[in-house]
């Protein structure tokens, strides 16, 4: 490897690595001004936020717990985005996974643990993958824009979940819109008691690494990226574009579905109408933040987890109203996207 390529690599790395760290303080800086205008002490607010996310071991593990679904979703989306498939439907795929995992966890609850846990995870991943492939099928067969179809499929998945938890799958006491608890044999191991850190987090890390290897180190990943860069050229080069689109959506949806299964099997133990507070949409920013690099998603996922985790304590202790907290979170996403555009433009210039 010659010096120039090393330098290029370093440059490339630095570009993808430092963007988030630049985007965050800028967003927080603007947020501080807004807090001041609204009559709150930004120092106190951010101190509360920091404390909420990192004050002790429990708080840090809670950040990782919140990051887990974001890493699953973000890593999957990175693959789709690399293929230029704009999957906005990770939310729906997450729900699809959570529903399937819950169904298996309840109705096959008598199976022994070593069978049930993999089965629950497999059900979640495959159901999320199918939900994603639905959009890919519509694109391949009818040329339907995946942005539209995946958004629509979100609603369908969320409403099906709502119907299931108030109808056929409602807990036996029938009191509230939730399913029964899944069998204890389906629970993921919480390996750091008394914290809730669970093996699903490890699984998310493994998945991110595997997807990184697939995308950047295999010929399959190369063809997926080739389709993403120029589908016509890829087709001319003999790549089956439709098949790659289907595959990218299957991976993306499967990862989101797996995230849904893990959320049920490790945290909630049952299905609610609103099992996700919008992980599927945060996941988009998580992936874009690191230039759609599955490995980078680990860091941006943890960053978003920390923001989310700290935001609640900011409300609680600094008495900052939730609208302002959401606003600051929105600023972070906005500045991330702005930096994404910046690095994209500067890259084009360079080339």
């Amino acid at each position, binding site marked *: 490897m010659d010096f120039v390529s090393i330098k290029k690599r370093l440059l490339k790395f630095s570009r993808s690595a*430092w963007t988030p*760290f*630049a985007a965050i*303080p*800028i967003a*927080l*800086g603007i947020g501080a001004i807004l807090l001041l205008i609204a009559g709150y002490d*930004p*120092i*106190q607010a*951010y*101190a*509360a936020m*920091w*404390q*909420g996310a990192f004050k002790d071991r*429990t*708080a840090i593990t*809670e950040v990782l*717990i*919140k990051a887990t*679904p974001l890493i699953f979703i973000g890593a999957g989306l990175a693959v789709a985005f690399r293929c230029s498939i704009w999957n906005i439907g990770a939310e729906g795929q997450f729900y699809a996974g959570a529903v399937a995992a819950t169904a298996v966890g309840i109705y096959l609850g008598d199976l022994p643990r070593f069978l049930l846990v993999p089965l629950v995870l497999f059900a979640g991943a495959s159901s999320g993958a199918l939900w994603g492939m639905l959009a890919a099928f519509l694109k391949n067969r009818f040329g339907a824009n995946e942005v539209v179809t995946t958004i629509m499929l979100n609603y369908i998945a969320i409403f099906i979940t709502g119907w299931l938890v*108030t109808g056929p799958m409602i807990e036996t006491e*029938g*009191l*509230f*819109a*939730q399913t029964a608890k899944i069998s204890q044999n389906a629970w993921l191991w919480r390996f750091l008691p*008394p914290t*809730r850190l669970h093996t699903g987090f490890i699984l998310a890390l493994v998945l991110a690494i595997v997807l990184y290897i697939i995308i950047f180190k295999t010929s399959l990943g190369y063809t997926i990226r080739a389709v993403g860069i120029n589908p016509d050229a890829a087709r001319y080069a003999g790549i089956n574009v439709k098949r790659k689109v289907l595959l990218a959506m299957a991976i993306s949806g499967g990862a989101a579905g797996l995230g849904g299964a893990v*959320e049920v099997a490790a*945290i*909630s*133990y*049952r299905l*609610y109408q*609103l*099992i*996700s*507070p919008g*992980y599927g949409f945060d996941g988009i920013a998580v992936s874009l933040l690191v230039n759609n690099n599955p490995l980078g998603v680990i860091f941006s996922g943890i960053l978003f987890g920390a923001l*989310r*985790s700290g935001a*609640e*304590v900011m*409300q*609680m*202790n600094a*008495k900052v109203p*939730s609208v302002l907290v959401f606003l600051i979170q929105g600023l972070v996403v906005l500045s991330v996207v702005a930096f994404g555009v*910046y690095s994209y433009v*500067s890259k084009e*210039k*360079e080339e």
Partner: protein
Amino acid sequence: MKKHLFVISALIIVLSLVTACAGQPAAEPAQQGEQPAAAFKAGLLAPGPVNDGGWNQTAYEALKRMETELGAEISYVEVEMSPAAFEKAFRDFADQGYQFILGHGNEFTDAAVAVAPDYPNTFFFLSSSRFYDPSVPNVIGLNSDSSQPCYIFGYIAAKMGTGAGLIGGMEIPPISESFTGFINGAHAVNPNFPVQVTYLGNWTDTAAAKEASISYIDGGANFLLGNADFAGNGVYQAMLEKNVYGFGMFGDNTEKAPQQVLANYILDYGAGLVGLAAEVKAGTFKPTGNIEFGLADEDVIYIVYNENAATPVPQELRDEVAALYAKINSGEIDTLAPVK
């Protein structure tokens, strides 16, 4: 490229310096906050915006009353609606010595049960829940028994009317129990009094609620009761249009059908919460079970007659109702008895 890098790096350095400096004095307010440990602290986990004009606002206003009436230090979180967030929010409150924490909805049950054993000096209350488990005695479910006021409504309907139609949102216990109370009350007057029940399957379809109401009226009913959240407005519309009688649920609904609503069932859940907080503050709260608000809690659940109705409830009937109150409170009348 180099220039860009320089500008950005400069920005980062400046901003990180700012945030680094900002980080130091931050320790101060945190320490100050820990000193007055004796203060009574009350916290709320709200599942939605506290200015929603409904469910969450009720709890938030109760919290504000705790501040003014009990001198409590209050705080709330509009918690992210994921079960992953609930436990942490409970812990964040309890870690700071909050003695009264309200999870405003049954969905907080699992999280409260998981957290409570670590904080024996904190009470975790759950709205619309009947939870009580002696092994986690500091998690207390709070429920309001709507079957009791609805028993009174059924009694009045059977005395004054020819038949009643009940329109529910979904067939879940909080709704079906209120209807059981109504039917029991009606049957106490006349075991053959016709009462029909329908469930819409949602909380929003006002038109369907109105249609169901009108079909009951066409079938001979002249009393209506809706318990369907927003969709219940369709029931009031039918009352107004067809000029039949009915009752208001959970608050003063007189203006929706000024001449037709004979009485309103007022639920002042906030008063119940403030009462509990006062007991927790005084150290006199010693729970032996879940808490069920009923007519006996006069400031929480009560009935207000509409004096401006076309035919107000006559005085002799009001006297009978007053006698029913006593029987319900003593347990002589079981408003939730299975309907024959």
